[in-house]
């Protein structure tokens, strides 16, 4: 039973990161029906910028408690600027193009971002270790401060985003744009600006997710956004693409499924497959959802779409 709860904790941690990234996919899809496949790489950019800035600040003698939040803010600023730029330069000119064009553009962008990152940071693995050795042992279930930090910050950000979308003027403008962009414009909503803001918000969340990934795994690399992006996309589809709450539940659920799968696959298959097959579960879920319930868990439900 300890394995179960341990994997549940691990899965929720991982899942909350997926959820943050999935929100970026689902917001952009909700508002302009575009799958922004470069979004996963935004997480990588956020991770590597945070990592580099922390090293630089630590080298200057800034204490970690200050260096880490400063680095995160720096990474968020970089990602927000990059997200804004990508929308402006790559997607906006394709607003009226057939849907395949922006999709291919997204894949191309993903490659460009990865290769530029490889030039800047090299192709090796960069390490990142936070000096937190303390762990809590709750009846055989080990919980680390990083895990609680990841989970807590994710929940806070998700709550903040829901509040923004449901209760603010910008959020209403986003929902109006998602439901009917032409009418939104006629009612005075600058939909171009709303779309820009959507990319900026999603990119900021991706930057935070980037910090979480390097803090949790302790390493970063220019390709780290690819698999993460695919899984977050799976989470968004699982929850119902376009639905904010769906992205959150989808992310958490996918993280738990993956962790439990990885925890038990060895036992179930008599050691034939190990936990290195954990990535399989996400894609089994994706295939399953697409075949049996393509609208996802919360897809198509009124009011949630952004």
């Amino acid at each position, binding site marked *: 039973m300890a394995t179960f709860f341990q994997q549940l904790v691990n899965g929720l941690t991982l899942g909350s990161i997926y959820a943050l990234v999935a929100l970026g996919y689902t917001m952009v899809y909700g508002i302009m029906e575009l799958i922004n496949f470069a979004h996963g790489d935004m997480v990588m950019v956020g991770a590597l910028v945070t990592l580099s800035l922390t090293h630089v600040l630590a080298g200057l003698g800034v204490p970690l408690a200050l260096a880490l939040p400063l680095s995160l803010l720096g990474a968020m600023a970089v990602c927000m600027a990059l997200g804004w730029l990508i929308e402006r330069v790559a997607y906006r000119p394709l607003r009226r193009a057939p849907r395949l064009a922006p999709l291919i553009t997204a894949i191309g962008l993903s490659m460009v971002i990865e290769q530029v990152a490889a030039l800047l940071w090299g192709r090796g693995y960069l390490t990142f270790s936070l000096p937190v050795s303390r762990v809590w042992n709750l009846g055989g279930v080990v919980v680390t401060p990083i895990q609680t930090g990841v989970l807590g910050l994710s929940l806070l950000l998700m709550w903040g985003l829901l509040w923004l979308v449901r209760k*603010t003027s910008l*959020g*209403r403008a986003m929902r109006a744009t998602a439901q009917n962009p032409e009418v939104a414009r*006629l009612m*005075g909503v600058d939909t171009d600006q709303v779309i820009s803001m959507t990319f900026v918000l999603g990119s900021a969340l991706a930057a935070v997710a980037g910090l979480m990934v390097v803090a949790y795994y302790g390493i970063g690399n220019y390709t780290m956004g690819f698999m993460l992006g695919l899984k977050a996309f799976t989470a968004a589809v699982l929850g119902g693409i376009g639905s904010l709450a769906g992205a959150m539940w989808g992310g958490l659920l996918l993280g738990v499924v993956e962790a439990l799968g990885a925890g038990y696959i060895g036992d179930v298959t008599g050691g034939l497959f190990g936990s290195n097959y954990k990535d399989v579960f996400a894609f089994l879920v994706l295939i399953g959802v697409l075949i049996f319930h393509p609208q996802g868990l919360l897809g198509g439900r009124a009011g949630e779409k952004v």
Partner: protein
Amino acid sequence: MDEYPLLVAERIGKHFGGLRALQGVSLSLGEKTITGLIGPNGAGKTTFFNVLTGIYKPDEGTVHFAGAPLPSGKPHRVAERGIARTFQNIRLFSQMTVLENVMVGRHLRTRAGLLGALFKTAGTLREEQAIRDRAFQLLEFVGIAAHATRVAATLSYGDQRRLEIARALATDPRLLALDEPAAGMNAMERKRLGGLLEQIRNMGTAVLLIEHDVRWVMGLCDRITVLDHGERIAEGTPREVQTDLRVIEAYLGTSRSVTA
């Protein structure tokens, strides 16, 4: 009656491929007036609205509003300048609540940016409350405040039309353009709508409306412009237009074919 015209559209032309939807159409209207735009189906009325609100760029002609040219092809800038509209086929944000629909209309009169929203500054919270109060006030004005928290799609047809008017009014327009606001309404509802539009005019917002019910329009409007086949065939007071031979022909066919 008015010192200067609020809207001056001059010789507007718009064609789609070979189809001439509008040809040399001029229309001007003053503040505190209700102007009717009538004509048979396909006369170009809705096309004219789309030019006016920036959805279409006119191929010929200019539109001046409150003394300055209107930006074409940028509907949100037109809304900012003070023209708001409703639609022939109702187009609400159907999954949002009634109140939220109206609050969207306040967006362009809102200052708060992303940072203000994120940090919940006192100014942002105050502004949000002001938006809410104003939206509620407008719902009361059009008479559907009781339904404020309902999802817009669940309203009755007539109430949805009223909601569209409230949403348009939320942008603080100087000109309210209504595309067949009375469509599908019975005589009783039409009468109430007419009263509402007169109130809007008297409060200082000009009204331009497309309508098919000629008798209703004649009783309501200060001036009327008649379009047929994309051209303006008459303009004047209801009485002048009513007796215009070209108008009678457009609606009834040529006098010869009527008598024949």
